[in-house]
C-alpha cells in the first residue's frame, strides 16, 4: 500500500488527505474542479513546497495537463532528460518507446508534434525517468475529442503493461471507469470516498457520483456474435451490445449509466429493450427532492438505477424486492 498523507492550506482552501492506496495498478482521483485533485498530485510530487523532499529527489513521473516539453531539445533529448538523471533502471526505456509509439518521433523537433503526440512524448519522458509512481494530471483534458480517442488506446496499454503504480486525476468518470482500478473521490480538499473502482462506483450515497456521473462498471467476457451484436457473458447472466467486438477469454469493462437502467416488477413480455436482468433491490437512496438512486444486486455484481422519488412511491419499491432491471445502453470500455 502507498500512504498518501498531505495537509496544505492555500488561502481559504485546505487540502487534508490521509489514506492508503494500492501500490499496483491505476488509482483514479475524481472530483469537481476546485476539489483539490491537482493540489494533491502536486503535493505528492513535491511541487507545492511545504517541506519534505524536494521534487527532484522524489522519483515520481509527472504528466501535466498541458503537454509540456523542452522546446530546446528534440524528442529524443526530451526523453533522455529524465533517463540520464534516473536513480534506477526499473523501467525499460525501449518498452516505453514501444508502448507509446514514439520510436518514429525521436528525431522530430518538439514544435512539429501534434497535441496528442506531444502528450505521448511527455509520458514517455516521465516513464523513462524510472519513477516509483506515475502522476497524471488530467492528461487528456487539453485535447479535443478526436485526439483523445487517438490517445486512449495508449493509456489502455499503459494500464495493462505498466509495472509501476499510477495516479490518474480526472473529472471525467468515463475516463476513470476505463483506466482505473481504484478510486478516490475528493470533495473540497477532503476524501469523500475511496475503494476499488467497482465498489465506489456502485455506491448510491456519493453526491459527486450522482446525475450523469452515476453508473457502474461490470466485468464481462465477449463470447459470441449474432445479428451484428456481441454477447458478453458475466457472472450473473449475459448482455448484448450492438457492434462486433473482438471475442476473447479475458473480461472487458462494460459501463452502464444509472440513467440507462429502469426497474420493472414483472419480466416484460413486449419491450424493445434487449437486456433485462433479474435483480434484487439492495438499497434506495434519496438524492434530492426529485431523484433517488437504487442499487440493484445481480448476484455478484451490482447495477445502479436512477429513478424518481415519485416512481419509488407509486411502485412501493422497498429494499429486498425482487425486480427486473432493463438496461437501455451499454458502453464497452475495452
Amino acid at each position, binding site marked *: 500500500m502507498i500512504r498518501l498523507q498531505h495537509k496544505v492550506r492555500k488561502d481559504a482552501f485546505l487540502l487534508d488527505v490521509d489514506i492508503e492506496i494500492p501500490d499496483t495498478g491505476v488509482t483514479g482521483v475524481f472530483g469537481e474542479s476546485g476539489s483539490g485533485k491537482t493540489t494533491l498530485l502536486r503535493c505528492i510530487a513535491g*511541487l507545492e513546497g511545504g517541506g519534505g523532499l524536494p*521534487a*527532484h529527489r522524489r522519483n515520481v513521473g509527472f504528466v*501535466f495537463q498541458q503537454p*509540456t516539453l523542452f*522546446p530546446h531539445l528534440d524528442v529524443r533529448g526530451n526523453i533522455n532528460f529524465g533517463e540520464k*538523471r534516473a536513480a534506477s533502471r526499473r523501467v525499460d526505456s525501449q518498452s516505453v518507446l514501444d508502448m507509446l509509439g514514439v520510436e518514429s518521433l525521436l528525431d522530430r523537433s518538439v514544435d512539429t508534434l501534434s497535441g496528442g503526440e506531444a502528450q505521448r512524448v511527455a509520458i514517455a519522458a516521465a516513464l523513462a525517468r524510472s519513477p516509483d509512481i506515475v502522476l497524471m494530471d488530467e492528461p487528456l483534458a487539453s485535447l479535443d475529442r478526436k485526439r483523445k480517442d487517438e490517445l486512449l488506446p495508449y493509456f489502455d496499454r499503459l494500464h495493462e503493461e505498466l509495472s509501476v503504480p499510477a495516479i490518474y486525476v480526472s473529472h471525467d468518470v468515463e475516463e476513470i471507469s476505463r483506466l482505473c482500478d481504484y478510486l478516490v473521490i475528493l470533495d473540497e480538499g477532503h476524501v469523500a470516498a475511496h475503494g476499488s473502482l467497482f465498489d465506489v462506483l456502485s455506491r448510491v450515497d456519493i453526491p459527486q457520483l450522482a446525475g450523469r456521473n452515476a453508473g457502474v462498471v461490470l466485468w464481462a467476457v465477449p463470447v459470441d456474435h449474432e445479428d451484428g451484436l456481441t454477447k458478453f457473458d458475466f457472472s450473473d447472466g449475459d448482455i448484448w451490445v450492438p457492434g462486433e467486438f473482438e471475442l476473447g477469454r479475458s473480461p472487458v469493462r462494460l459501463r452502464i449509466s444509472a440513467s440507462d437502467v429502469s426497474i420493472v416488477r414483472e419480466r416484460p413480455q413486449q419491450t424493445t429493450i434487449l437486456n433485462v436482468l433479474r435483480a434484487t433491490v439492495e438499497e434506495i437512496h434519496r438524492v434530492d427532492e426529485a431523484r433517488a438512486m437504487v442499487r440493484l444486486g445481480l448476484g455478484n455484481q451490482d447495477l445502479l438505477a436512477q429513478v424518481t422519488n415519485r416512481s419509488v412511491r407509486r411502485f412501493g419499491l422497498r429494499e429486498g424486492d425482487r425486480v427486473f432491471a432493463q438496461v437501455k445502453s451499454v458502453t464497452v470500455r475495452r
Partner: protein
Amino acid sequence: MSLYGPLWLPAQLAIVTTAILIGIGTPLAWWLARTETRWKPVVQSIVAMPIVLPPTVLGFYLLILLGPQGAIGSWWVSLTGDALTFTFAGLVIASCVYSLPFAVQPLQNAFEALPRQTLERAWTLGASKLDAFFSVAVPLSLRGFVSAAVLTFAHTLGEFGVVLMVGGNIPGETRVVSIAIFDHVESLQYASAHRLSLLLLAFAFIVLFVMFAINHRWRRR
C-alpha cells in the same frame, strides 16, 4: 597616445563590465522574476534608476562613495593602498552600477517568459534547481543573455558622464572614447572628433543590428 587609444580602453572596460554584470545580473534577474516579496518594486526601481538619472548625478555619488574618504573607497585604500577614483578599477565599479539595468532587464524579461511548468517538469524529471537552471532555463533564455550582453557592452562603451566624474580624463588610464570626443570638440579638432564619433556610431549600429537580426531569426524558428 594614438588617436585610437581611447577606443581600446573602453573596449576593455566594456568587456570586463559585461562579464561582471552577467554574473551579478543573472541571479538578481532570476530573483526578480520569481520573487513574490512586496519589496520587489523597490529593488526594481533601484536597479532601473541609472536609466533615468543624469549620469553626472550618479557619477557624483559614486565619486563620493569611491573616493578615499568614501565608504567603499576607504575600504579599498586599506586593502590595496590605492584610491579607487581615477583608476581602471574605479571605472569598472562605476560602469557596473551605470549599466546594471541593461543587463538585468533583458534577463528578467527572459526569465519571466519561462513557463513555471517547464521548470517543474525539469524538477520532476530529476533535475535539481541548479541543474534545471543550467539545463533548461539558460538555453531557453539565450536571447535574453545575448540582449543583456550586447546592450551592456554597447552602453558601457558609450558612457560619458559617470566616467568623467569618477575616472577623470587620464590618457591610457581612464580616458574613454566619449571623453576623447568631448576633448576634441572643445579644442576644435573636428576631424578627430568626426572620426571617433563615426566609429562609435557605426559600432552602435552594427551591435544593435546583429542583436535584432539574431532575435528575429530565433523568433522565426
